[in-house]
């Protein structure tokens, strides 16, 4: 218990964690991918790891899924160590990969039933669960179509259904909506909620999408192989004071430096824009327009902060082009 407190992974008040990690480390040669990662997930919560590509999300996911052994540290499921020899314990987890892991030549229903067979779900039970899951995923009318013939969004929903067919206690998802448009994103999350249904499986996911992060109960902010904060999305957002002033410019890095120097404001370049966090942001707009001659920037706008801004605020890092609103 002391070790848990020292590594900062414990839940307040000694509350038992469903899934916990203590001091996970992993390196690819000289490159450190995970530098002492600890966390604790409550039973039934939706817990997200938010970070850009290269933050260590994929490595962490591979370790959680049991595909990679950490060079140090350990995982605990309900307080019991989860390692290579604890396969019965692993059977209580369901995994959805970022890469497709369906058999494209088999039908949607067959994919579910093979998934069930892997976890020794009895045949008759597997048949009725497959029907119910297809229904919840909105795929009842596609049950007999080959998985390869389904749209990207449908395949995602089928993957999630397959990962839940053995009724795991923990559902693990790697970037579940990467590459999906806004509509498919919403449908995926709707069906994730209905698939989870009454069972209330604990959900652990990685993401770099601010909209996806906002759907989590709590977020672990992952930056350069370390967790820098574990908070609710609301509390993370409240770190950003007031508004975000967005300046579109051709040379954002140079302009950010100049704004910082001349106006004494904390300006950061992000992609093709300069971002300035500021309370009463609208008052800054005329000052900017007057301070810089025409042509230095294309547009100035004010918006409410997103989790991408909160991430930038917490880590000084950009979530990446896909995360920009």
């Amino acid at each position, binding site marked *: 218990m002391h070790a848990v407190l020292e590594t900062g992974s414990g839940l307040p008040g000694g509350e038992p964690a469903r899934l916990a990690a203590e001091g996970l480390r992993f390196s690819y040669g000289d490159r450190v991918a995970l530098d002492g990662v600890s966390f604790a997930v409550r039973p039934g919560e939706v817990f997200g790891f938010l970070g850009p590509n290269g933050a260590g999300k994929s490595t962490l996911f591979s370790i959680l899924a049991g595909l990679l052994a950490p060079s140090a540290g350990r995982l605990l499921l309900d307080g019991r160590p989860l390692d290579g020899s604890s396969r019965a314990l692993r059977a209580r987890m369901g995994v959805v*990969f970022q890469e497709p892991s369906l058999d494209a030549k088999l039908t949607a229903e067959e994919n579910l039933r093979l998934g069930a067979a892997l976890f020794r779900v009895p045949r008759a039970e597997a048949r009725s669960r497959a029907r119910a899951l297809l229904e919840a995923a909105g795929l009842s009318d596609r049950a007999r179509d080959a998985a390869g013939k389904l749209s990207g969004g449908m395949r995602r929903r089928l993957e999630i259904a397959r990962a839940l067919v053995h009724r795991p206690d923990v559902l693990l998802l790697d970037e579940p909506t990467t590459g999906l448009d806004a509509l498919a994103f919403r449908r995926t999350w709707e069906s994730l909620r209905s698939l989870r249904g009454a069972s209330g499986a604990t959900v652990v996911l990685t993401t770099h999408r601010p909209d996806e992060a906002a759907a989590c109960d709590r977020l672990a902010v992952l930056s350069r192989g370390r967790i820098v904060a574990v908070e609710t999305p609301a509390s993370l957002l409240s770190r950003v004071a007031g508004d975000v002033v967005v300046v579109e410019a051709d040379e954002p890095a140079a302009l950010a430096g100049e704004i910082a120097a001349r106006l004494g404001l904390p300006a950061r370049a992000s992609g093709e824009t300069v971002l300035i966090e500021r309370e009463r942001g609208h008052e800054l707009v005329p000052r900017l327009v007057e301070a810089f001659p025409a042509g230095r920037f294309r547009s100035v706008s004010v918006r409410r902060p997103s989790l991408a801004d909160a991430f930038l605020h917490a880590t000084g890092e950009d979530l990446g082009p896909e995360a920009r609103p």
Partner: protein
Amino acid sequence: MNAGYDAATVGVLWRRDLVRFFRQPSRLVGALAQPVLFWGIIGSGMAATFRMPGSEEGYLRYFYPGVVLMVVLFAAIFTTLSVIEDRHAGFLQAVLAGPGSRASVVVGKVLGSASVALSQAALFLLLAPAAGFPLASVDWPLLALALALASVGLAALGFAVAWLVDNVQGYHAIQMTLLVPLWIVSGAMFPRSPDHPVMAAVMRANPVAYAVSATRRALGGPDAPGTMPGSVGRDLAVLAAFAAVNLALAVLAARRRGARS
């Protein structure tokens, strides 16, 4: 508890390869057409010049057991090739994250591949009477055992190479330069010649030669032309050892929990 998950994993992977094979009519047609063309074209081309020392055996009859082995060999190569993609972006990912052991993943995939190879061989064997081997005179149990051991050995080798090489081009390069020559010098296309002691030694060290030899015995009797010196028992013992060693190799390879990055 764990043994049950292992059995389930073996069953799922085994079933999956067979379902996929029988569901694709193009694969069934290809499985039959390719060896028939190969046997017919090379067989008739060589028939005029081929003379088996001390035997009246025609080339089409001599070549037939060799083509049966070629069917098994290519089927094993192509079905285990899928391991490479399947492991990083396919169904195998989900199996690897499941509760079955790595050994059960290897056994399930190898049994699946071997069953596909045997199914293809069985289709081609329907033509045995055309090659001069009446179906009633074939020693079917011996044939099934020899081909099963050979296909398990070759599929396990394919799995090990696929896992360790982990890219499609490398896999093809290795399998084509390793296995195809082994088949060619197995006695499948031409018999051992007493004038070439080096070739004879290569053949004696070549597991595929024992598979061809056992197949010849099953089709043409214990003393069929072109068999290896020694008994059918020795042919089968070598094949069993080949299968066991390659399975062990594949399990060892698959236990490495490495990441491609």
